[in-house]
């Protein structure tokens, strides 16, 4: 087997003096570690008190007892290296803040901001948006900290991938607890990082418990148990990852082990694991009565308090006097006292800034918006002409006719006619050529070219480092994109079916969509998650859903769904360039759909609907493949029934262009929505809500302009069935749209 587990506890720990002599450390450095440990300890003690006084509210998972792990690990990295933290993250944040503090003032400022964040004050690291569980200074080498156990590990893999891609030589330390090693995120991430060969070090803080459940064994008879192996390092071995086990109560041991691992990562560009055996002093959170562990056990661990251990060493090796050690303690206490005063006296965030920093604000030059309008209607006409030519031109083969028709469109409109699939490939290729930081990762995106061929040919042009085939690990694929995006590259993650987004959701929402806001607007996540959905191939309920309503329900995400090759290309290019996380959903039945698009470069601004067909009687709002059904229905309604429908393609579902829709309803008085997703709390009702609430300049709202109750056509509330007639019955189709519009107009 290609792994080794090194139990460092079995070896003698080098004396500090010896390390100093070797030039590996300085006495001041070690004394500063002690000071940081004291600061963390006092910080946590203070937080415990303030929680009791209800001055700090919310959850607080205290780090006291584990200080040696954060301090030793972070001492082992350099400025510019990255850490990823957890729900028990005050120690990580405290230690890395000290590392970045250039002087005493900066150090005090750091603790001030930490305490202010815990109190939810405007001056906190995240402006009071994150609090205890999301405390992080993302500007200074921190990926952030998550409240979802195990959820921080995939982003660390992505961050490491970004450092590797950018060739910065930086490494990523990913902290996580023993409990999180039982989550899928952990396993997917370990495997992915191992396979991708990224410079990452997993720091497992094995404090023996995940909340109340012992990882292995028990000191109280009735306690449960989470795993059947004692050392998490063995799990690393299973993924081909070298691992060490160290005494997490001794900062020197931790430092030395992590230092080695960091050097390994930097040199080999590979990951390894350091499992630290440690213990938390307080309960899981303040309300925890700690009934699951014995007093003897607690006593035994407390005798090995990391502060005591280090203080004793310094004294025994005569590197510090009692007075000196006492001065360090007093200084740390003073820092925390000052921080407490600072935070107490800090202002609250202003509720008027509530919605600030959910998104990176983006705008488009007016020419881009105007150009899109022009191109879009031209493309519609050209596509229509192409379709007519396909029926009227003659030729031996379909391909020949198609080539003739394409040539005619090129001559008459200056446009090409291609399939949606090719538009997607073109968009990605163009953006990858334009920006070397654009990469693609996902299942089968390489040689196979994607399950629906939307990345076909890209591997050949851009190579394995930019078109990355991954294991079947949706959470890790998504989280990896998030982490890489936070660290400054522009990943496109492909999730083969939108149905699988159920597995990605934690990463996409909690990290992708929320990170910017949770970390006070200091992070951005410029990633694209490409996927496809819808019925049309008889592949039943696990492969046919339309889940966009799930996604628009997430603040911080953009959701884009194209209906034509023109839109597909322009929107995808804009999505890749966007600094916000964009979910881009194609429709499985449309990859071969042909349509016209400009020969020259263009993007389509996100957040702008497109009127695919102007009309005056009814406003039909739709998107994705259903647009084609709506257009077919509109044609029939006009030709046979004299009803003139306006068909609006939302294109971007979030942010929604309510203005275009509301203005249309103002004209027609009638609104119908057509979606392939489920109706309840879905897109249709949402569109209706936006229209009803839309405020016009004259003081009226969209409600006032409705001349009939709006109608929502949507997927039947059934798991999409496999059988074709059932599948068809489950979604809106042109005949149903025609009938519904007639009824709406008759009313």
């Amino acid at each position, binding site marked *: 087997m290609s792994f080794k587990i090194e139990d460092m506890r079995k070896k003698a720990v080098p004396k500090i003096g010896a390390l100093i002599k070797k030039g590996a450390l300085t006495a001041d450095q070690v004394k500063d570690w002690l000071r940081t440990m004291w600061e963390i300890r006092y910080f946590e003690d203070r937080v415990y008190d303030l929680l009791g006084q209800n001055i700090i509210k919310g959850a607080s998972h205290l780090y006291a007892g584990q200080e040696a792990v954060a301090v030793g690990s972070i001492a082992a990295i350099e400025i510019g290296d990255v850490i990823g933290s957890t729900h028990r993250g005050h120690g990580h944040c405290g230690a890395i803040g000290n590392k970045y503090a250039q002087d005493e003032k900066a150090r005090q400022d750091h603790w001030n901001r930490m305490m202010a964040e815990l109190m939810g004050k405007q001056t906190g690291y995240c402006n009071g948006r994150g609090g205890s569980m999301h405390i992080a200074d993302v500007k200074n080498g921190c990926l952030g900290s998550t409240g979802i156990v195990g959820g921080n590990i995939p982003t660390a893999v992505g961050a490491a991938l970004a450092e590797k891609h950018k060739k910065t030589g930086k490494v990523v330390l990913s902290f996580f607890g023993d409990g999180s090693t039982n989550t899928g995120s952990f396993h997917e991430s370990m495997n992915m990082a191992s396979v991708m060969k990224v410079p990452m070090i997993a720091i497992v803080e094995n404090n023996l418990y995940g909340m109340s459940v012992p990882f292995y064994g028990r000191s109280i008879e009735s306690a449960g148990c989470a795993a059947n192996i004692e050392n998490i390092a063995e799990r690393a071995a299973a993924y081909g990852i070298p691992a060490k086990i160290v005494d997490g109560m001794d900062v020197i041991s931790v430092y030395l082990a992590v230092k080695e691992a960091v050097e390994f990562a930097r040199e080999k560009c590979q990951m390894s694991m350091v499992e630290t055996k440690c213990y938390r002093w307080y309960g899981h959170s303040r309300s925890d009565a700690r009934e699951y562990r014995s007093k003897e056990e607690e006593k035994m661990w407390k005798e090995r308090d990391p502060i005591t251990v280090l203080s004793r060493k310094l004294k025994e090796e005569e590197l510090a006097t009692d007075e000196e050690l006492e001065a360090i303690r007093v200084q740390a206490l003073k820092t925390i006292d000052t921080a407490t005063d600072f935070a107490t006296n800090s202002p609250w965030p202003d509720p008027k800034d509530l919605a600030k920093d959910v998104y990176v604000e983006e705008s488009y030059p007016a020419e881009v918006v105007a150009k899109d309008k022009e191109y879009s209607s031209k493309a519609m006409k050209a596509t229509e002409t192409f379709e007519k030519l396909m029926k009227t031109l003659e030729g031996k083969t379909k391909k020949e006719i198609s080539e003739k028709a394409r040539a005619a469109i090129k001559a008459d409109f200056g446009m090409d006619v291609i399939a949606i699939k090719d538009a997607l490939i073109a968009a990605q290729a163009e953006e990858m050529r334009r920006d070397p930081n654009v990469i693609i990762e996902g299942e089968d995106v390489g040689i196979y070219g994607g399950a629906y061929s939307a990345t076909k040919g890209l591997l050949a042009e851009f190579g394995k480092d930019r078109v990355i085939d991954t294991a079947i690990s949706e959470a890790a694929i998504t989280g990896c994109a998030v982490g890489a995006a936070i660290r400054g590259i522009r990943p496109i993650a492909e999730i083969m079916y939108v149905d699988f987004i159920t597995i990605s959701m934690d990463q996409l929402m909690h990290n992708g969509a929320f990170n910017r806001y949770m970390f006070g607007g200091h992070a951005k996540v410029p990633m694209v998650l490409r996927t496809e959905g819808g019925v049309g191939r008889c592949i039943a309920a696990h492969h046919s859903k339309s889940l966009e309503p799930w996604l628009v329900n997430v603040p911080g995400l953009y959701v884009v769904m194209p209906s034509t090759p023109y839109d597909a290309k322009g929107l995808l290019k804009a999505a890749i360039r966007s600094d916000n996380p964009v979910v881009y959903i194609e429709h499985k039945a449309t990859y071969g759909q042909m349509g016209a698009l400009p020969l020259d470069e263009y993007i389509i601004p996100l957040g702008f609907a497109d009127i695919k067909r102007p009309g005056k009687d009814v406003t039909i709002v739709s998107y994705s493949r259903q647009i084609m059904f709506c257009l077919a229905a509109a044609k029939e309604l006009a030709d046979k029934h004299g009803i003139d429908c306006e068909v609006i393609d939302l294109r971007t579902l979030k942010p929604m262009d309510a203005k275009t829709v509301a203005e249309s309803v103002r004209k027609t*008085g009638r609104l119908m929505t057509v979606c392939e997703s489920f109706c309840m709390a879905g897109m249709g009702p949402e569109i209706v809500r936006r229209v009803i609430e839309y405020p016009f300049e004259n003081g*009226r709202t969209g*409600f*006032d*302009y*409705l*001349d*009939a*109750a709006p109608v929502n056509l949507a997927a039947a509330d059934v798991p999409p069935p496999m059988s074709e007639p059932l599948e068809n019955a489950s979604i809106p189709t042109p005949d149903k749209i025609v009938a519904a519009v007639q009824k709406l107009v008759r*009313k």
Partner: protein
Amino acid sequence: MAKDIRMPKLGQTMEEGTVVTCLVKIGDAVKKGDILFEVETDKATMEVDSPAEGFVKAIIAEVGQTLPVHAPILVLGDKDEVVPQSFIDSLLGGAAAAASTAPVAAPTPAPVQPATQPVAASAPTVSGSAVSLAGVKVLRLQKLGQTMEEGTVVNVLIKTGDSIKKGDVIFEIETDKATMEMDSPNDGVVRAILVESGQTLPVHSPMVILTDKADTPLPQSAIDAIRSSGAVAEAPKATATTPVPVPATPAPAPQVKAAESVPLTTGKVFATPRAKMVAQDLGIDIRRVPLAPGAARLTEADIRKAGQQPTTATVPPQPTLSLGQKVTINRLQRIVGEKMLQSKREIPCFYLNIRADMTELVKLREKLNKNASVKISFNDFIIKAVAMGLRHYPIMTGQLAGDHIQLADSIDIGLAISTPQGLVAPIVRDAFNKSLVEIATYCQGLIDRARSEKLTLDDLSGGCITVSNLGGFGIDSFIPIVVPGQCSILGIGRISDTCVPMDGNILIRKLMNLNLSVDHKVANGADAAQFLDFVKKTLEHAGNFA
């Protein structure tokens, strides 16, 4: 503070008083001691003076009305005080209770309360409210059996002036089952018998008016009103006696701009938000907009349609004239004025009215116009029909010429056209010999020329009749003034859907009013009537034009 003045007890034995004169009017300032009313009691006529100072806000007691002591008769208030209707209503409610007279009627007919069905009568008291005539009771035909719906009076056993007692037999009534006796549910003096032997009437129809006393005032108008009130929907519970409600002065016409011919929908009106918004913008009362058949709610289209119909309350077009302005009279208007004055001075007119059923013609016109290049208007049909009528009754073309009546050489018909400059009535020459299409073409030319002020003197001289149509303005019927030099003028109203009894059924037909004003110097009623009837029949038989 509003203060109510009540009927004073002017003598030891006084129980009620009849108002003889009212000496104040609303708005008057009165001082304590000023005389308000003269009141007649069983003993004498006496003055009611004001017990307080103030301004008259409402006069509740009406001349001729007999009111019990303590009944409210007048309301005083401060100078600019507005006394709410509710205050007056509460006084009336209290009065009814105090004097135990008939209940105060609801302000509008309330179908759930048939006993208070108001009848038109004099005695206006309080605006917006209705009070009953004190001491008057109406006996109605009782339901003498479960299935009885109507009864025939076989015998009247009382006469006016009789004093009757509760339980006295007053009529013999025959129903589909048997002949039965109807007895009086009340004591009183018979003041009017509203039925006679042999008459069949529905249950609850009024039959007799009783009063408490022989001299209780009972104006003829009240009797008429009761007579015409008909059967009330439901019998009052314990007795067939109905207190007579008398409506107060009709409430001032609601400030809705246009005709109110469409009845108000009561209760919640279901309309789309857009319909409500458009109605608001156009100033249309949605309660007056009819719902399309089978529709669940009003839509914008209903409102706009209603907005185009003059019968619906719409915002009138912005006036181009302002009050107080001096409007110069143009030449045309001066001529019109002079001619009309001359007509009124010199032409002794009589007026005839007839209604033509245009249903067939409407259909024919639709058919003819469907693919026609020249569209035929109703006026064209009317001109043609009039031409045919004049041919039949040439006297209608005549003019008094000294000692004789001169008939016209050709049938020339004027058409009244409203132009921006004023009214003109150019002539369609020799209309009888023109085909319908020729008339239509010619008229269109006339209209165009009239509107562009290109009519010649020739266009305007002569003629034996003028056709004037105000149907386009929503007018049902009007009486036009004969143009001097012509024998008559025909005023046409709008074509409206009307329920018409026909062959034992009620059909909805499209009827149109024709009013003919005729110079009596030339033609007599019989001539003119036959002529008008001929025109009507010509219009009614579309075949005449086919």
